[in-house]
């Protein structure tokens, strides 16, 4: 009894706690260190590239002339892919989580997870060999009927290698991961909230809008960002499908299409030397920064209404 006050004041620390907090801290620090290391490497190695002259930035005159169109192509292809993939992924995820009979939904769930694991080179080959020719009639139709819209002015190549095909291939690539995450999130909607909506006389779709989407909003944004990250950095699929050029163009089905940063690095790196390498690394740094900006923007979107997230 005498030392019971001692017992109470001594902090309780078990081995498990110490190991866990140690590893958690270690892992967190490791991530930051890696990130800082990558950033530092890119900055130091890439710095000379920013001021390189036309000899190292062919076919452009200077760094901005080269990197600008690449950034444009990267952001454009990834955005288009996201615009195609997110609505579809949300739809498929909803079907699996809230509409399909239980046995079917399990099978579909496995299938989606499986697709997420297919390497991107497979998607790239599929895109160029199978998908692109199949899409050509659609492009032709677009060119002939709505060609006055700058996006579809053409002319379409018979091979179908253009920005639109890249977007579709990228969309197919990122679809499974977005779907898998959305499905997981939709399944976690609290029954309490679903029943609150149903008890008010909501139809299933109304219930989804009242309970499932609001609850899953930040998760959907995160899933989309993960997909966007993959699309931004995707190298092989883009390299395989596109015949690259350095230009700005909103003509998705034309013969000349802007390349992307990752694809350009993959194509140019083997033959690059000296300052050219610095230029490529500098474009890599730009890609690194784009990813950061995108992620911060997404966080900001999610946090804007965090008060209403139900976390309190």
């Amino acid at each position, binding site marked *: 009894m005498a030392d019971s006050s001692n017992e109470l004041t001594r902090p309780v620390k078990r081995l498990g706690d110490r190991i866990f907090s140690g590893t958690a801290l270690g892992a967190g620090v490791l991530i930051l260190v890696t990130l800082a290391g990558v950033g530092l490497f890119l900055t130091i190695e890439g710095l000379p590239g920013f001021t390189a002259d036309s000899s190292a930035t062919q076919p452009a005159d200077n760094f901005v002339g080269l990197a600008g169109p690449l950034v444009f192509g990267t952001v454009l292809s990834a955005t288009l892919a996201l615009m195609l993939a997110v609505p579809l992924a949300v739809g498929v995820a909803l079907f699996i989580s809230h509409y399909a009979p239980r046995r079917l939904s399990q099978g579909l769930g496995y299938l989606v997870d499986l697709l997420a694991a297919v390497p991107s080179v497979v998607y790239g080959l599929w895109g160029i060999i199978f998908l692109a020719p199949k899409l050509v009639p659609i492009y032709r139709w677009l060119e002939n009927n709505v060609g006055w819209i700058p996006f579809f002015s053409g002319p379409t190549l018979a091979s179908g290698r253009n920005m639109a095909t890249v977007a579709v291939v990228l969309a197919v690539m990122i679809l499974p991961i977005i779907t898998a995450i959305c499905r997981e999130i939709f399944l976690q909607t609290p029954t309490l909230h679903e029943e609150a909506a149903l008890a008010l006389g909501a139809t299933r779709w109304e219930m989804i809008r009242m309970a499932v989407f609001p609850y899953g*909003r930040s998760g959907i944004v995160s899933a989309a960002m993960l997909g966007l990250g993959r699309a931004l950095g995707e190298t092989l699929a883009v390299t395989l499908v596109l015949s690259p050029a350095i230009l700005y163009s909103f003509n998705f089905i034309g013969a000349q299409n802007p390349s992307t940063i990752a694809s350009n690095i993959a194509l140019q790196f083997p033959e690059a030397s000296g300052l050219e390498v610095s230029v490529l690394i500098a474009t890599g740094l730009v890609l690194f920064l784009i990813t950061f900006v995108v992620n911060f923007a997404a966080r900001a979107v999610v946090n804007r209404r965090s008060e209403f*997230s139900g976390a309190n």
Partner: protein
Amino acid sequence: MAKSIDVTDLDIYYGDFKAVEDVNVTIPAKQVTAFIGPSGCGKSTFLRALNRMHEVIPGAYVDGKVLVDGQDLYAVEVDPVAVRRQVGMVFQRPNPFPTMSIYENVIAGMRLNNKKMKKSEADDVVESALRAADLWGEVNERLARPGSGLSGGQQQRLCIARAIAVQPQVLLMDEPCSALDPISTSAIEDLIHELKANYTIVIVTHNMQQAARVSDDTAFFNLVGTGKPGRLIEFGETRKIFSNPDEKATEDYISGRFG
């Protein structure tokens, strides 16, 4: 318009498991009816069968008739969504929509029925529902704040406001006070007294005093044995059930001499 509920030969299942058996009862209009009974005897299950919320659970179904104003809720041509618009429900745990403001929570049910409501109309509905739920004074200056920022008792009254905003014929409440302090509980009991002028109210409660205080009629449910379905043992005026019940089991349960 309050309506009475006639239940005939109702069996309620969760897949193969029969949870409630052979219920026959008439729940009178504009009265408060309390369901009492030991845990697991099927009070919640029966309550949820009265607005077709039971079938929301995968594999769950019922067999029998539930007539509200002469219309069988389980007739093939009846849409469960329409049933739930007429028979409102308040749950054991307060469940305001966390992403909606207090205002949006109250108006949520109305928005489903009538998408294009004038702002002034909506304001009126919100105010009268919140007044009826005795919450107006506490929240009228922060209607745009999230509903989940209220206290538990306030949240529960918000849920009641949300349920009565659509003016249902019947209001079902599953242990609405079980998570609340005595003051909030008393506020909700007062509220139930006021609401019964306009609504048929069914309330599940584990609190005998509460059943005695708020209800006009009481239904006692019990389990015949473990693993057996629950049954309605006795139904009658609350005064009679609590002073002089017909069944021994009812008396034992109420006097606390239960198993």
